């Protein structure tokens, strides 16, 4: 009797593992992000960052968009940013910053799966630092 799994069976096994990863790795972080966003804690944290936004040529209110992008997702960030009436330069700076560092809790779960907990933590920290530096560099370039 041939015990070698068929490609379809092996694909199904991988799919099962992926579903499990979604439920165990992604879902809890999504719930946490949602609660942070709706509770106003994210906005509260962002209010402390308002003073630093000048570094990237952004108004203090943009901190809420940055926090929403990093803590939740880019759609949340865009929704906040849309209401701020930012210039194309400011939006580009924010796009670069958040392009590198967004959906951090949920995407951290993917990185854990790929490289392990310790390295994933280092990578997520790197994303925040590099995102901030890249945003600053772009703001300088765009004047």
């Amino acid at each position, binding site marked *: 009797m041939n015990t070698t799994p068929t490609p379809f069976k092996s694909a199904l096994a991988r799919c099962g593992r992926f579903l499990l990863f979604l439920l165990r790795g992604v879902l809890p972080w999504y719930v946490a992000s949602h609660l942070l966003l709706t509770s106003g804690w994210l906005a509260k944290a962002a209010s402390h960052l308002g003073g630093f936004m000048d570094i990237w040529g952004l108004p203090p209110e943009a901190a809420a968009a940055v926090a929403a992008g990093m803590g939740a997702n880019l759609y949340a960030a865009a929704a906040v940013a849309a209401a701020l009436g930012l210039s194309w330069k400011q939006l580009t700076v924010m796009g670069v910053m958040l392009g590198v560092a967004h959906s951090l809790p949920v995407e951290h779960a993917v990185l854990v799966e790929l490289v392990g907990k310790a390295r994933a933590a280092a990578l997520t920290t790197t994303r925040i630092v*590099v995102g901030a530096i890249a945003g600053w560099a772009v703001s300088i370039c765009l004047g």
Partner: protein
Amino acid sequence: MGGEHLSWIEWLGAQSLVALGKGLVLCAEIAAVVLPLMILYEVIEARGILKGSWKGAERWLKPLGLGPRAIIPLMAGVWLGLLYGAGIVVATSEREGLDKRQRLSIALMLAMCHAIVEDTAIFAVLGASVIGILLPRVALAVMVGVMLGWWWARTAPGRGS
């Protein structure tokens, strides 16, 4: 006081349920996109259709410290993103037997630059510059990839793919 406490718990319970519902919808959406791709990839791979297809990619991937088989997880992440590409990125990395170094290189490059179409479009719609967002992200990913590739080559000379 007690009422306030109760309402806070009620809020948490209600919002957790909402988040759980939305999260399950998101997981279903991701699964609907990713699972067919995973099955398709597995079947194509088993039939040997991809055999030798990545030969041309070898010279582009070598400076990044990556072997030709790393192209699939890398491209999946770049186009689909970390979350939607996760199934393919993680499964193909395992399937292709990519070592820890290659996985770290892929993870670092994807951390800098992933879901380039979707992420860029979100801000482009608001009025941001497409080139202004894309160029720094791609440049960053290539830069960190080349740096890591150089470092891997230095610390483990003669390492193959």
